[in-house]
């Protein structure tokens, strides 16, 4: 896939998070691209930095304690990180919209769905510098809810979040996300909070909508299955690094990174939100002083001395297939490569 067609480019993004115990390096130089109509899945254990990436793209990270140390997020060539709050507002919802993890907590409990959606819709209208009357906005909201397969929206729109089931709320959130018909839709674990049957419905909904409105999608999940069902490409994330980036087909045919392999082995019990992989021994490392070199090496069965020293970078090992692992460095040991790798580290 080529540079030009990509509308969102995340390059070498480093995010640190200050806690009283020290600085957690939660994102350590992650890079990926998202093309037009492209659907990319971001997979990894809970807390590997997926959500942070997503929030970073929408500039929703609370600063402090988070700090964006380096890197850039380019949307149509414009670096979002350099935007003012005012400019952000034009992007959010309008061009890039987000569907959140937990529908229970992402709706304001004290306002009716109508009010919340109308506010959103009119807000967008204003940014498109054309205003919109309440009633118009209301009609549009009802339309969106309908599109999100909400049973008799005209009535239910009056209700308050606590009167809806989890699935229904997620539909509301999706409808809201669509309100500004954005180019990019970021779905952060859109189904994890829901029970399995609902999950399926919601996924189907998202797929359908994507096909209908041709959004580019960044789907974040800890569940390979889910990603596979929606996305064309996939990025595997481990402890703040993208370790493997390729298409769905390849990931299942020839998973390359040891961690990816582990993931695949672990699929059955992956959805158990324990944040612990049965397939792989040990658990996600401490972000405050992460392992030197490859962050995965303490858990890696194939760990070599170099892994403990040098941080591997994403390297093309095949068409549309990048891996960050020294196992796939053909001419290793090679001081130069090592040095190059070193020089990449801040």
């Amino acid at each position: 896939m080529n540079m030009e067609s990509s509308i969102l480019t995340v390059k070498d993004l480093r995010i640190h998070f200050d806690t009283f115990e020290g600085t957690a390096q939660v994102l350590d130089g992650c890079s990926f691209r998202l093309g037009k109509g492209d659907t990319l899945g971001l997979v990894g254990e809970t807390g590997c930095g997926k959500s942070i990436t997503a929030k970073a793209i929408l500039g929703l990270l609370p600063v402090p304690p988070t700090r964006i140390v380096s890197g850039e997020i380019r949307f149509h060539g414009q670096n979002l990180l350099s935007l003012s709050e005012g400019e952000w507002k034009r992007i959010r919802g309008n061009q890039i919209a987000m569907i959140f993890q937990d529908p229970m907590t992402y709706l304001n409990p004290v306002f009716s769905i109508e009010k919340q959606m109308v506010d959103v819709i009119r807000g967008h209208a204003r940014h498109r510098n054309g205003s919109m009357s309440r009633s118009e906005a209301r009609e549009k909201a009802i339309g969106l809810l309908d599109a999100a397969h909400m049973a008799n929206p005209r009535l239910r729109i009056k209700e308050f979040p606590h009167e809806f089931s989890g699935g229904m709320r997620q539909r509301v959130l999706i409808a809201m996300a669509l309100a500004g018909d954005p180019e990019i839709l970021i779905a952060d674990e859109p189904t994890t909070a829901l029970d399995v049957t609902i999950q399926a419905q919601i996924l189907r909904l998202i797929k359908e909508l994507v096909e209908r409105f041709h959004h580019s999608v960044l789907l974040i999940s800890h569940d390979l299955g889910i990603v596979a069902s929606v996305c064309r490409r996939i990025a595997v994330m481990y402890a703040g690094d993208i370790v493997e980036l390729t298409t769905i087909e390849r990931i299942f045919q020839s998973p390359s990174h040891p961690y990816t392999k582990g993931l695949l082995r672990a699929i059955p019990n992956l959805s158990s939100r324990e944040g612990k992989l049965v397939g792989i021994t040990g658990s996600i490392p401490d972000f405050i002083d992460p392992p030197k070199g490859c962050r995965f090496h303490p858990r890696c069965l194939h760990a070599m001395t170099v892994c403990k020293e040098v941080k591997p970078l994403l390297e093309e090992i095949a068409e549309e297939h990048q891996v960050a692992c020294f196992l796939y460095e053909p001419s290793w040991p090679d001081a130069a490569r090592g040095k190059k790798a070193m020089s990449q580290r801040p």
Partner: protein
Amino acid sequence: MKQYIVKRLLLIILTLCGLITVIFLVSRVAPGDPARLAAGPDATEEMVEVMRTEFGLDKPLVLQYIAYFKGLFRGNLGRSIRTRRSVLDDLIAFFPATFELTVFSLLFAVVVAIPLGVLCAVYRDRFLDHVARVFSVSGMALPMFWLALMLQLFLALRFDFLPLGGRLGMMTEPPVKITHLFLVDSLLTGNWHAFQDALRHIILPAFVLSFPALASIVRVNRAEMLEVLTRDFITSARAHGISKIRIIGQYALKNALIPTMTMVGLRYGWMLGGTILVETVFDWPGIGLYAVQSAVYSDFQPIMGVTLLIGINFMVANLIIDLVYGALDPRVRYE
């Protein structure tokens, strides 16, 4: 909803009965001899007896207790030994002043404190925030009566623009009594002079009385705002490009107001207690002053009357607050 209110009211009555009992028992521990005071210092034994029968103090405790309840239903709260008048009359005469003062103070506190709290939360750890926090912490540490004296000393004395005490200038004819609240009445009757005078008189006491309330409401509101602003629905609102003003002024504030309300209700009660001190300093002719003087005289019928009245006030206020919840929070259901 209806049953809920009824239930609450019943509970209030129950509590009041308990309250009466407690105070009644307490009151009868009093060593003093009320009849003797009523009779006057030079009174002969014979005269004291006259009083004793008149106040029903010659009957055994139980009978007095029953008698008190009986009287209560007939709207008779007994008689004050100090003022030699029916307690009910006194309360009717003095309560409006207290009510006006507390409500005015509370309004003042709320109107100032809530925006201030919001601002502090928004500009957390900025100059304003620090100032407001120091102010709010010290607000609760300042002895009301002392603050009152100091204000009298510096505002009322040094610069001569606020009166020292009282409810109206002694030359100002009180406005026609409709609600018995001077500010309201004078406005209703368009008596601008009286209104201005009443306002001038209420400013200092109201400020002093509202000070602690103001402080604590700012604290609560600030804390709540800070907490709410970290919630997910705020993030999503931002993600959908809702403007900052709206997020803070509506989405966050409405959530934050719910706990704040509780504090407001609580503070109303504390204010009623505070009147004891403030009215003493500002010579405000309300039931706080009435209570103090009665207590010093160990004149008990009035104390019971005041306790009862304030108890009712406090509990009803809290009931109202709970109803306000409903308006603020759709999740609240009254069972």
